[in-house]
């Protein structure tokens, strides 16, 4: 994991001091709310229904036990004992007092964390594959590149007042676990015909009111030109992105208006004009950062590891089920990647209590080389677990309610905070997720992989557009209604869902989802996931089943 050097530390101290002074000026009446809002937003502080909400960056989803313990401490001391992990590999605290925020930021700074650029029209927290550095299907570790992007984008003087927010995601694996195609810029590390590793650069993805899947801007960018190329894209966007309409100001709208070819011409022209020497990334610089991400030394598996594990699995079907769904292959023999589900049935998705965070910090030290990751699916990951340790880890997790065996299944629902917390919401999200997960948990195995995603308004924080089944809260004359989409997907074959028909009232959502699942179960062929069946048979059978009865 990246460790700050003296410059990083000094920078963050300066930042906390600057923010402390901004809060002081606000509380003293020197800054109006209009003047202060952009400043607090640049430190991730929103005003929500019940209090301020602080969004803290977890750069590319990487957490250490020390960091997680400080998050737990913040939950206890400054909040109500829990935090909410989001779809952007951030954590949000919902009950924050403005006057305490400078102290919170100082506590975070002590463990090399901050909330810089978790809001505002700037380059946001860079997200990445949560299995990075452990996955068996990646060509190299993407985290050094994420860290390079993090540093370059931090308080970027030219790109802190863009037309709109700007999100970058990076993956180096065959399976896209970072929703790369839904980002303003998506980066896939690829190997070209000559065997060199570089970036495929995508641009123009995004959700919100006008969802779009990113398109390829460049098939192959040499790695050392990454920052120059990102700057070229951002400069074109800063110049031409719309500023007259909030809903048309993301880069996806610019890409749509120009067309990808003209966009490419503009970017390549700027990139060429910058010259070869712009924003160099000398090999020594890259190597110095990459050294922070050296793979952990993992013990070779013992001769009886697998037989031990097999015996434990045979004795405990619940353990076997958990291993089946929440454990993924690791590149190192005898090891595994464990997904810790934050989705117990009937509970708010993505929430973790202070006690759970502290336990996970301990377990990461004991079983996972001191590493924890946050996923965009609002779960946590222990990336380096010895397979032999899986039964013990599972027991510890189970004692804290963290061993729900549903990763990637129907009850592993993504949900935004919705109207229970969010001042922009049209309808509640969490109660819908709770009812659905309670209802579906018993059928998780029968249904198989299914991604249900819920947002409380069109901003799409819950990624509903790309849910296999997406649920969007709308307000119909003061009543909560929900519009349902099907066939979306957030992976390497990203697709936007199609609306099945008129929105349904809150009480009908569970039944409607049941009906859609029923059609899928009836018509699926061997090995088909929900979106596969949908692509084969189209929307009609689902629509008929849902609306014919009414």
């Amino acid at each position, binding site marked *: 994991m990246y460790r700050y050097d003296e410059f990083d530390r*000094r920078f963050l101290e300066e930042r906390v001091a600057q923010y402390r002074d901004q809060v002081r*000026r606000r509380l003293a009446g020197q800054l109006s709310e209009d003047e202060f809002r952009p400043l607090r937003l640049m430190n991730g502080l929103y005003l929500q229904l019940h209090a301020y909400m602080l969004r803290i960056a977890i750069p590319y989803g990487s957490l250490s036990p020390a960091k997680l313990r400080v998050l737990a401490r913040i939950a206890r001391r400054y909040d109500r004992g829990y935090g909410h992990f989001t779809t952007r590999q951030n954590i949000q605290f919902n009950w924050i007092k403005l006057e305490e925020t400078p102290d919170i930021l100082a506590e975070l700074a002590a463990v090399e964390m901050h909330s810089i650029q978790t809001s505002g029209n700037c380059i946001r927290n860079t997200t990445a594959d949560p299995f990075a550095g452990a996955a068996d299907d990646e060509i190299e570790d993407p985290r050094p590149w994420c860290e390079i992007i993090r*540093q370059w984008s931090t*308080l*970027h*003087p*030219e790109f*802190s*007042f863009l037309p709109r927010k700007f999100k970058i995601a990076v993956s180096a694996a065959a399976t896209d676990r970072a929703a790369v195609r839904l980002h303003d810029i998506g980066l896939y590390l690829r190997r070209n015909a000559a065997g060199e590793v570089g970036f495929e650069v995508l641009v123009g993805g995004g959700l919100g009111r006008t969802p779009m899947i990113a398109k390829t801007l460049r098939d192959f960018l040499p790695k050392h030109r990454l920052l120059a190329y990102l700057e070229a894209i951002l400069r074109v966007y800063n*110049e031409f992105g719309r500023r007259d309409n909030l809903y048309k100001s993301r880069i996806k709208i610019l890409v749509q208006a120009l067309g990808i070819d003209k966009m490419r011409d503009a970017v390549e022209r700027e990139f060429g004009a910058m010259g070869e020497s712009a924003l160099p990334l000398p090999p020594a610089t890259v190597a110095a950062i990459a050294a922070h991400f050296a793979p952990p030394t993992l013990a070779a598996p013992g001769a009886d590891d697998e037989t031990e594990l097999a015996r434990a699995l045979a004795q405990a079907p619940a353990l076997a089920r958990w291993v089946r769904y929440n454990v993924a292959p690791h590149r190192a023999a005898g090891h595994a990647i464990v997904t810790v589900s934050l989705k117990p049935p009937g509970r708010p998705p993505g929430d973790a209590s202070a006690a759970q965070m502290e336990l996970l910090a301990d377990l990461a030290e004991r079983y996972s080389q001191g590493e924890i990751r946050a996923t965009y699916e609002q779960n946590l990951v222990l990336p380096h677990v010895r397979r032999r340790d899986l039964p013990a880890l599972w027991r510890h997790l189970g004692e804290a309610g963290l061993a729900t065996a549903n990763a990637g299944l129907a009850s592993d629902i993504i949900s935004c905070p919705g109207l229970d917390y969010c001042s922009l919401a049209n309808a509640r999200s969490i109660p819908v997720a709770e009812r659905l997960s309670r209802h579906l948990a018993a059928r998780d195995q029968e249904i198989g992989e299914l991604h249900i995603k819920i947002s409380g308004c069109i901003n799409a924080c819950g990624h509903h557009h790309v849910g296999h089944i997406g649920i969007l809260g709308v307000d119909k004359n003061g009543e909560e209604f929900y519009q349902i989409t099907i066939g979306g997907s957030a992976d390497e074959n990203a697709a936007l869902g199609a609306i099945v028909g008129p929105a349904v009232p809150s009480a009908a959502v569970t039944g409607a989802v049941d009906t859609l699942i029923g059609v899928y179960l009836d018509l699926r062929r061997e090995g088909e996931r929900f979106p596969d069946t949908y692509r084969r048979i189209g929307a009609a059978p689902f629509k008929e089943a849902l609306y014919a009865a009414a």
Partner: protein
Amino acid sequence: MPLLKDGRVGDDPWRHPDDAESLPDDAPATVSLARWRTERDALARRAGRIGLRLPNDVSPLELAEDVGRFGLITLAFPRFTDGRAYSQARLLRARLGFRGELRATGNVLRDQLLFMRRCGIDAFEVGERALAENWPAALGEFDVFYQPGEDGRPWIARQRAAG
């Protein structure tokens, strides 16, 4: 309007006549881009120093031939959210080598001064509060920067290389 430059708040020595007014003979003056385009040759022959008021929707690259003639280019920040002029500033300094005064005008806020300075802007049109609230101090709030800038201060890559 008071001007923040070189760490001090003072008066603006430049005049900013609109297109219908004639230019003062003795004082340095700025013109709009439209006027520059129509009266370019006459303006270039003028004795007093000339400056340009650059709107934020025109690429400075269109002025590549001309920038050397200006003693001042003013950039427009109509709202704090409209950050187009940050890119204009960097292009003027880094790409076109503009050496004159680059001035931020419009809705210039204390907490944006340092971003502007890093992009090469060296003068700021500010309100009366600038003195009371010690705006010059905002330029010194950081001495670690993660990007190369146009203000001559070292960035982190150089600081690290120096150990």
